[in-house]
């Protein structure tokens, strides 16, 4: 009996024989354990190559999926290229708005700059008027009166009305003097004015000019409070003696 050689076995395994040759080979293997065993070995080896190749495909897919995940994860934390432009634009807009607001608040600040600020030179105090209608005639330490701060440019400034029994204010509305410890950069929207009675010495310390005659007197003064409750400016209501000393 002639055994099948490797070439014939592989050709039979791969279906590359013609029908007659294949039938002959199959018939032989049915009777020959040695050739059948050899055939089965080659068949198993071929199957392993097929499996290995399929596993390579699965591994490659898994690797690509993993790479994709890593890339996506990186993308989550990566700053987009256009992001820097956006940040720059936001910063630019923010700075512009800040500068504009600052300039605006400086222009509109109702409190006169302290004349002593600049090398002792007497600077002209910005002219402001404060509507004191509501505060007029109110007793000290009792009232927190809303003040509408207006630029003097507006012709509608309101003179202080005289109230019977109240101290006579100066004929000219006294101007507020910025308190030395106040922050001029803070906004003064919706400020309130509180009338208080203070010793002349305290007013002097605050930068308010007090006549020598009233050096030991208690004087009435209006204090401007910002909406944060902090005092910004002060003015003397009257040089007259408002109380006992």
């Amino acid at each position: 009996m002639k055994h099948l050689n490797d070439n014939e076995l592989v050709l039979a395994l791969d279906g590359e024989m013609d029908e007659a040759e294949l039938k002959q080979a199959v018939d032989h293997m049915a009777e020959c354990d040695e050739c059948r065993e050899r055939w089965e070995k080659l068949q198993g080896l071929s199957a392993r190559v097929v499996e290995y190749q399929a596993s390579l495909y699965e591994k490659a897919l898994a690797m690509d999926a993993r790479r994709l995940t890593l890339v996506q994860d990186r993308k989550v934390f990566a700053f987009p290229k256009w992001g820097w432009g956006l940040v720059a634009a936001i910063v630019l807009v923010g700075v512009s708005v800040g500068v504009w607001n600052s300039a605006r608040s400086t222009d509109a600040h109702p409190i006169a700059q302290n004349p002593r600020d600049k090398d002792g030179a007497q600077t002209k105090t910005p002219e402001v008027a404060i509507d004191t209608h509501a505060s007029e005639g109110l007793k000290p330490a009792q009232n927190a009166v809303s003040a509408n701060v207006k630029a003097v440019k507006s012709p509608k400034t309101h003179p202080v009305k005289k109230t019977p029994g109240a101290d006579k204010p100066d004929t000219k509305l006294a101007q507020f003097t910025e308190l030395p410890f106040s922050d001029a950069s803070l906004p003064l929207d919706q400020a309130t004015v509180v009338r208080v009675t203070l010793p002349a010495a305290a007013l002097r310390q605050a930068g308010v000019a007090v006549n020598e005659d009233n050096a030991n007197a208690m004087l009435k003064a209006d204090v401007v409070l910002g909406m944060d409750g902090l005092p910004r400016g002060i003015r003397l209501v009257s040089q007259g003696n408002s109380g006992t000393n």
Partner: protein
Amino acid sequence: MAAGDGQCLALAGSERAEGHRVNAEGATPEVVREVRELFVELRVPLCRYLISLGLSANEAEDAAQESFVRLCERHQTPENVRGWMFRVAHNLARDEQRRHKRRPAEQLDDEYATAEHKEPRPTPEEHLLEREQDARLKAALARLPESQRHCLHLRAEGLKYREIADVLQVGISTVAEWVQKGLKSLERDLA
């Protein structure tokens, strides 16, 4: 695969698929249908073969897509279409490898082994045995001459000798010889 109206093919399955509608104007509906059927039949085998040559899954998918695009551009299917498709894909893979100095396909296993692969295995012993057998087969395949290795990879995808001969541009008897020698070498190495 998604198909458009009339004479258009849209090859799905890769990142290039979107927006890559193949205009097959001039091709008969029979040809279009044939290409679609071929796509379903050959896409995965083509990718498997390309990966065995060293391409990544995405690159293999793209090369397979490109092969189908070229088939559509012919407006008629070649006589030995499977062989033709594998030959085009084979050449695309070689071009890709030349361009990028591609690593050998066998490195994929090492890379994969270091990755967090959590595919469930029945037991650690089986996992170990499987990995050992794969490693030995991988080493044995790597030792084969390129021609024999390509023959075995194409054969593993079910190609007939005639088709393998078409891909590798050699005679059928040469393919038979390479397959036989390749199997014999593997058998000897794995014994």
